[in-house]
């Protein structure tokens, strides 16, 4: 809706960007999630391994104890009551291989006589657990001792029971797979979550940015959005900056207004004096010089007047006083006020036959100033005997005022350039002007929620179109 004026907006294209907060946040979240996932995997694995080993050890210990209880010394030698369930039990989980050995003193009485022995002999019935290798296979062993009477003598019997740990490894592998899945799942879940979290955290920044970016170029109110605590200092600094900017702005405008006032009063004196001198002088060279003086003074005075108007518009855009009005009446009144000036240069002002009622809301003074500048421009750049056509139409909920002349046109310049302060077209050096007129119109259009365009007219000349939203 507002005309885009690049020189008035700060665009991030001009900001040196180093990195991205969102990316950093997401990456840090993901790194954290990866660390947690890996930690989770190992924690589950180690815990499960320990639990499985402890459970298997308990079974192995019980089986070793059962083995030790089966050995009896009889009159005709040893008898070993070896229930098959001892071995079946050890092999139940994962079909493990089973090895055993029974020693009395230093003699192996049965079993596998090369099965590894514990480094320190176990004390009594409490099993000693240890790892070993047998037949090229790593095995887990348990050993207990028991004192017994053999041939009338006390002897120590050592019972060793070993088993492979295929079943335990299968369980550990299956748990590891699950733990890995858990970790991967956790990480995958963390990806969208971290994206959402980064977005949520950075949301307020985006909202403040949008609120500030959406402002009109002259909107220098402080930002009063509610923001998280961490953004408070930034907004505070921004508001302080805006305040200082406003102060500087106001001082400049005041200075310009003062300057314009101070220039205008002596200028009118100079002009009056020059005109008197012109009437009294008979020498042609002097008269020519005096005419030049008068022209220059006129130009300066006009500039000063427009500077005043501009300052007024700037002042009022800050605190627009909105009131309802009929734009048709405003246009008609203005056209009438310009008729004497136009008649002097024999320019016809043709106001469209039927002006529809166009109720709008805005600052009447600003709108009048804008329209006055448009009409002034049209008359100023029209040749003598020319015609300026003024029309008011309603279109798409807007009141559109079109002022078309048959003047010299824009000479290829763009509105964006012409609307810059003190910038004038390249083809107007012979006409008095300050270069502020179009700036004022554009600023009023923006401040009132309207639009202003300047387009070349078919067959030569220019059409200035100023529109406001209907009430």
């Amino acid at each position, binding site marked *: 809706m507002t005309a885009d004026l690049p020189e008035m907006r700060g665009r991030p294209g001009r900001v040196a960007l180093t990195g991205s907060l969102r990316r950093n946040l997401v990456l840090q979240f993901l790194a954290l999630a990866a660390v947690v996932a890996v930690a989770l995997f190992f924690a589950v694995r180690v815990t499960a391994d320990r639990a499985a080993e402890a459970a298997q050890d308990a079974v192995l210990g019980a089986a070793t104890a059962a083995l030790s209880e089966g050995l009896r010394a009889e009159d005709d030698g040893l008898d070993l009551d*070896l229930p098959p369930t001892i071995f079946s039990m050890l*092999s139940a989980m994962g*079909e493990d291989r*089973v090895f055993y050995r029974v020693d009395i003193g230093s003699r192996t009485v*049965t079993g596998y006589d090369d099965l590894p022995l514990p480094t320190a002999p176990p004390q009594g019935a409490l099993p000693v657990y240890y790892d070993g290798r047998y037949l090229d296979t790593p095995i887990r062993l348990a050993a207990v001792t028991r004192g017994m009477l053999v041939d009338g003598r006390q002897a120590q019997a050592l019972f060793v029971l070993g088993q492979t740990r295929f079943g335990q490894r299968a369980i550990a592998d299956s748990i590891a797979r699950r733990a890995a899945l858990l970790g991967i799942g956790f990480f995958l879940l963390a990806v969208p979550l971290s994206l959402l979290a980064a977005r949520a955290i950075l949301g307020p920044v985006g909202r403040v940015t949008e609120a500030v970016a959406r402002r009109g170029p002259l909107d220098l109110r402080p930002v009063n959005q509610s923001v998280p605590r961490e953004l408070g200092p930034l907004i505070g600094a921004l508001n302080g900056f805006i305040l200082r900017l406003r102060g500087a702005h106001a001082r400049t405008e005041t200075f310009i207004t003062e300057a314009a006032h101070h220039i205008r009063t002596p200028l009118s004196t100079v002009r009056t004096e020059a005109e008197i001198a012109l009437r009294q002088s008979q020498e042609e060279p002097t008269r020519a010089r005096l005419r030049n003086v008068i022209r220059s003074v006129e130009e300066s005075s006009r500039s000063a007047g427009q500077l005043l108007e501009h300052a007024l518009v700037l002042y009022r855009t800050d605190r627009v006083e909105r009131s309802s009005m009929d734009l048709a009446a405003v246009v008609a009144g203005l056209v009438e006020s310009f008729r004497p000036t136009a008649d002097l240069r024999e320019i016809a002002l043709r106001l469209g036959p039927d002006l529809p009622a166009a109720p709008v809301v805005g600052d009447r003074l600003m709108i009048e100033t804008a329209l006055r500048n448009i009409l002034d421009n049209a008359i100023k750049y029209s040749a003598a005997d020319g015609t300026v056509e003024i029309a008011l139409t309603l279109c798409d909920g807007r009141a559109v005022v079109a002022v078309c002349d048959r003047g010299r046109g824009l000479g290829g310049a763009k509105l964006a350039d012409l609307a810059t302060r003190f910038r004038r077209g390249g083809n107007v050096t012979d006409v008095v002007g300050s270069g502020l007129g179009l700036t004022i119109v554009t600023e009023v259009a923006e401040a009132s929620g309207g639009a202003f365009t300047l387009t070349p007219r078919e067959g030569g000349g220019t059409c200035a179109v100023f529109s406001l939203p209907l009430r």
Partner: protein
Amino acid sequence: MRRLFPALALSLGLTLALAAGPAGALEVEDQIRIGPDTPQATLHILSTTDIAAARPMLDGWLARNPDLAVDYVVASANEIHQAITAERLPFDLVISSAMDLQLKLANDGHALPQDVDEAAGALPHWARWRDLVFGFALEPVVIVASASAFDAENLPRTRRDLITALRDDPDRFRGRIGTYDPAQSGAGYLFATQDASFGNTFWRLAEVMGRLDARLYCCSGDMIDDLASDRLLVAYNVVGSYAQVSTQAGSGLIIIAPEDFTLLLIRTALVPTTAERPDLGAAFLGYLLSPAGQAAMETTPGMAPVLGAAQGLPSSARAIRLDPGLLANLDRVRKSAFLGEWTAAMTQP
């Protein structure tokens, strides 16, 4: 009992097989070589199963592999264990009915792991141990009796019945009862220990048999032979496949599956670490477990395929568990104690 030493076998016309075979110092009971004269490769099988009972599966495999030959050596379970562990003879596959010895071979690291999962996938878990020992046939362990031994309506249906019948008529049965010698036969020891684990009936039966001067045998086949020639009236613990073969022809023999419990023997196979062509051993094992191999098992009398087992088996059937529990009975202290007790029961004053 047949004891065929290699030299003797040579003279029996098995020249080719033995010249190439790994039999070595093994005490061979029987041997056959089947296949073309110049085969691409020869599969060496060491087995406790008689050639007659093994023939269907051997022929079935050779029909699928016409370029290959099979050297099939029959020996006792104890000999087989010795051949693999001590003599390390290069056989590619070991087939045995002595489940405990097979399991010990595997437990002690003499079996190669096999990747026959597609074939063995349907195998019930009790019919395999790890990826090392695979059961391929089920056989009930039964009592075979001469039809003239009992009155038709007074047929013993349990071990207790048998004990009663033997006690009631000792003169008739004296010297005419046969069973395995557990000291000599691996399978016989397995059956005896399993029987003993089910209760005291076995020892009572042993005492009765000992008092009646029971004859002890190495093999089911010999018991059947003596039954057929009327030297025996009752044979206790006979492997089903042999019993079935001999009772088919209407020889006047009857099979009794004891109703208190009937042991189910799982015939197992493994590829030993000594194999020169473990691939051939594995291929034959895969065939045994395949539908075709199992079908061959079905046509062999007395054998039931392990896949889709349990049909046609007596309801009192108890499969011997194929797990390291079997190792307990092989413990030397325990074994000598058991055999001592057995001998005491057999030789009574």
